[in-house]
């Protein structure tokens, strides 16, 4: 006798929960980054999928495979979860071909998360570049949620993309800009005729914004090159390695520390990460 799927899912971390794609948003003018809004087919699964910003999930397309993708929505948004995916190989291309109404699967939530308790009561500096902004968006939406806002101090955001058309979540950026309780700094490497905002690279903008290190934590995510040039800015501002947090990426399969694929030293990025402080990364090998 086959058990009901909800029970199998509860007992077996390899079996994805069924979800329906309820909305697809093309985020960028190059059309290769889309946000997928997924709703759980079974109510029990929605309750089981309790996540914290910074976690990820395996998006599962039967017949194609699975891809680990950061959760882009915030747990304060009810009724659905969102993922922002760049078209890359087999699974992500198949995702990009999908239409609203399609059924697919999700395994998770996986990994640790942004260290919410550690961030509480502190001033938070968010630095994001390119499409790695997804789990930072989750964190921002979590922190500015009405009931949560007072648990965090000043929120400063520096977010950059190569061009205005490559910025994600444009409506949200606009809405955040209108709030008085986020210092939002959106920048593009090079503007266009309609761009009225800031131009400049993320490291430079961080230097100009110069957030205070007092009681502050920086959460940074972006392409390696951006990280490489931005970290010195924060060291110069006096941020300690304990107070700079980032998220790693490694090729993954199981997502639960079994398949042996994603280790950095003794740690598995899928299970012990993907979030680490620079101080923690210093203790690991430099093979990622």
């Amino acid at each position: 006798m086959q058990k009901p799927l909800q029970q199998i899912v509860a007992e077996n971390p390899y079996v994805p929960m069924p979800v329906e794609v309820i909305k697809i948003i093309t985020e960028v003018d190059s059309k290769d980054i889309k946000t997928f809004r997924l709703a759980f087919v079974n109510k029990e699964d929605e309750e089981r999928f309790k996540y914290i910003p910074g976690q990820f999930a395996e998006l599962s397309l039967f017949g194609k495979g699975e891809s680990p993708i950061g959760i882009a929505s915030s747990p304060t948004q009810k009724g659905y979860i969102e993922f922002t995916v760049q078209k890359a190989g087999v699974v992500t291309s198949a995702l990009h071909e999908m239409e609203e109404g399609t059924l697919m699967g999700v395994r998770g939530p996986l990994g640790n998360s942004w260290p919410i308790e550690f961030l509480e009561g502190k001033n938070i500096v968010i630095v994001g570049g390119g499409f790695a902004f997804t789990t930072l968006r989750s964190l921002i939406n979590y922190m500015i949620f009405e009931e949560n806002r007072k648990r965090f101090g000043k929120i400063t955001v520096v977010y950059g993309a190569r061009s205005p058309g490559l910025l994600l979540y444009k409506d949200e950026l606009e809405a955040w800009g209108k709030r008085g309780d986020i210092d939002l700094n959106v920048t593009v490497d090079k503007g266009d005729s309609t761009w009225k905002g800031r131009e400049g690279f993320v490291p430079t903008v961080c230097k100009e914004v110069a957030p205070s290190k007092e009681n502050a934590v920086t959460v940074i995510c972006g392409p390696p090159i951006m990280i490489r040039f931005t970290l010195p800015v924060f060291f110069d501002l006096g941020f300690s390695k304990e107070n700079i947090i980032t998220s790693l990426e490694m090729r993954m399969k199981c997502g639960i520390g079994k398949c042996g694929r994603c280790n950095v030293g003794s740690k598995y990025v899928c299970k012990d990460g993907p979030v680490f402080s620079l101080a923690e990364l210093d203790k690991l090998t430099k093979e990622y």
Partner: protein
Amino acid sequence: MEKKLLKKDKLSGIVKKLAAEKTVYAPVKDEDNVLFKILEPGMEPLTSFANTKNAPKKVFFPHSELLMKYTRSPKGMVFAAMPADAEEFVLFGARPCDARSVALLDMLFDQEKWKDPYYIEKRKKGTVISLACVHPPYSTCFCTSVDGSPTSTQGADLMLTDLGENYLVEFLTPKGEALAPWFGEATAADAAAEAKKQAIAEQSAAEIKKKIPGRAIKPILDVSFEHPFWDTIAGKCLACGTCTYVCPTCHCFDISDEIKGDDGARIRNWDSCMFPLFTKETSGHNPRTSQKQRWRQRLMHKFKYYVDNFDAIACVGCGRCVMSCPVNIDIRKIVEDISKL
């Protein structure tokens, strides 16, 4: 823990009787090799052999394993079915090193937070009968250097030790005791048998002349990730992956999808950290681009990372990788060299 004595000529019959009732994996002759196979009527289980060519880990963690099935629906591919639950089985004739490897794999697959239901299901249903090594079978054996011994009971439910005319039968776990009815002809073991087994254990361990500093290299590995030594070890390595496939403790796998018409399967297959594509990301970025890095990973995983995570060395000293490597790379030599860094 009960111990009994069984006349040696009775054993093969008992194993065959077991095989008539449930699946029994046993060492059998296959051309020039000894392999673990399902014992079919007419097949003779070996009770006296060196060791099998491949490790028996496949009975708990198959080379290729169905994870789930799915099927086409009007709204896309959807889950269809799980593989059938495992049936009770017996793994007969595992050497103590291979039985220990199962205890080591338990640490990974049966963790507190994430459990591997496929592996755990087979572990629950499988009973391990080990055959102690009265003499270490190969010159490449080094179990005593990695926390094991030729008579280790770790991972076994029942162990047999050849005392000459009789086997000492040790029922080690409730699963082992559940096999007692099959050993009805066995008689109570006396103190003399016990003493004899003790002497055999000491003698056999002493026969393993090769000693390598298994635990001792851990503090060295802790600080030598960047050491130039690693440049010297992998020069000849072909990245063929043989060492990881024959290894009883290697557990890396890949997950892939196969589809035929409207039906498909998600399966997992053994993979190897020795393969260049193992860590390659879609972007083209690969954290381990050289065979040096991959060999370092394999060695570190066994002698440092597993120790960090589980306080156990992920090598049981079976020597299979040493015997199978086409270019004679010897993990024992590498460990010795590291101890001198």
